[in-house]
């Protein structure tokens, strides 16, 4: 058996969901002896891998963990790490697709009825985490902007690197804030008024803001690469153009480019 095949057999047996033949095949690669049987030796690695991923997820999704409880969260983490493997060595970027995984689980399992809001909440937690690590922005070039504007050029505004947008029909910002301040939240019901949220890193600390629909639509349009002319024609986004300076001052718009 060559090195590649050996690693295939070994790593397949690390999956806690692997079947007996897979584990037996991996165990047959190992020397026998000492106080541990080959299957126990594989379990040490299974446990190490799961533990590493779980700790990474605990750092990213502390509120979801608190809501789901330690045992259920650990199970989700373990299943996630096998359902959605990553090739990225950087554990700080681990868990990006966990919200969608969680949503699938919630949909498939009756006992999770009522937890539908966790899709949005886990997204919010990941965006908050990602903002902490995002690239820095350069400051807005007002002179360059004025020059292009004077030439009548059509432009696209660039949102800040750490900026993310999301909307939810659940009061996820309140849930997030309450859990982080140590309070327990009662049963969550959907709200009729949609929340528009913006996650952004101010200097070193990620922040979450509620924004209004025009600001949300405007920044989302910028993110999609829509030009100023197109945004001015968008009834949802147009009024936000009036507060452009404020958006720039807040650091939400950090640049522009000519189209």
């Amino acid at each position, binding site marked *: 058996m060559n090195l590649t095949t050996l690693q295939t057999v070994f790593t397949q047996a690390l999956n806690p969901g692997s079947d007996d033949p897979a584990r037996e095949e991996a165990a047959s690669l190992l020397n026998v002896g000492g106080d541990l049987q080959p299957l126990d030796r594989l379990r*040490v690695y299974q446990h190490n891998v799961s533990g590493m991923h779980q700790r990474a997820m605990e750092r990213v999704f502390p509120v979801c963990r608190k809501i789901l409880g330690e045992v259920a969260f650990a199970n989700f983490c373990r299943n996630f790490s096998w359902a959605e493997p990553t090739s990225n*060595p*950087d554990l700080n970027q681990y868990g990006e697709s966990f919200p969608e995984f969680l949503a699938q689980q919630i949909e498939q399992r009756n006992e999770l009825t009522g937890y539908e809001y966790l899709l949005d909440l886990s997204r919010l937690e990941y965006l908050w985490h990602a903002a902490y690590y995002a690239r820095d922005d350069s400051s807005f070039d007002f002179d360059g902007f004025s020059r292009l504007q004077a030439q009548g050029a059509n432009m696209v505004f660039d949102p800040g690197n750490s900026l993310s947008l999301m909307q939810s029909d659940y009061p996820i910002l309140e849930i997030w804030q309450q859990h982080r301040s140590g309070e327990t939240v009662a049963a969550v019901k959907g709200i009729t008024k949609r929340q528009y949220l913006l996650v952004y890193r101010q200097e070193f600390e990620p922040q979450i803001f509620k924004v209004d629909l025009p600001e949300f639509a405007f920044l989302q349009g910028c993110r999609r690469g829509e030009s100023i002319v197109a945004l001015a024609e968008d009834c949802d986004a147009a009024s936000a153009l009036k507060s452009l300076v404020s958006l720039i001052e807040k650091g939400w718009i950090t640049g522009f480019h000519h189209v």
Partner: protein
Amino acid sequence: MDHTAQGWAFKEIAGVGLGLRSQHIDEVLLTQPAVPWFELLTENHMAPGGLIPVQLEAIRSNYPVTFHCVGMSLGGTDPVDVEYLRNIKTLIERYQPSLVSDHLCFSQHGQHNYHDLLPVPYNEETLHHFQKRITQIQDILETRILVENVSSYLTYRASTMSEAEFISELLSRTDCDLLLDINNIYVNAVNHRFSASEYLSKIPMQRVREIHLAGHENRDSYLLDAHNKRVSPPVWKLYEQVISKYPDIPTLIEWDNDIPSFTVLREEADAASALMQRHRTAA
């Protein structure tokens, strides 16, 4: 490529350094303790923006640093992750670490990163693989790396040589150096029932450029390399065995889980320094 001819002047490290973890960064920046150097887990410092690069810049302006990586998957057979290595190279160029290291294991297979140090069989095929892989990675990084012996909880039937023989042979064939983890040797010696002293006798010590010391956990039927305790007495004894003959090898205290106060880390470093000093004087 000659990896000994580095394009920049590395500041040499000496004495006993500490693995710097996020819990202690503010304290270190505030109090500027007399620690000769810090080792950084490179993957924890790859963020392109925010607080992390600012902290790293501040640390680097006051201390020599070494980079300890976990993502090269030196023993892995997936293609090398060029993007990851370019990021590491950018960090190397920016912060000029005195040493760059990774482990003699694999961490990725079939595009699945396990984020753990998974063992390889010790045989001719693996030797050849490491030889090629280390050379390829050093060419990309344009620097010589150190490879570290890992702790393990199993051995493969496909192994045809001992771990120490494997490392010695690898170093004879490859243009890299060794980061000798004494705790890992002890953990493996207990887990796989071999003599740690005999292991040490097979290591070409002139190629050891750094030593790691850490704590392990006794799980009754095996020792777990948990990095969550003080260095154990038998590991100190093994360390002394090495440092009595080679008192100038820079040594690092590693502590990754259940992180204690910085004072505890300093105490461990002081203990290693005292041993180092005693044997330097004797020499």
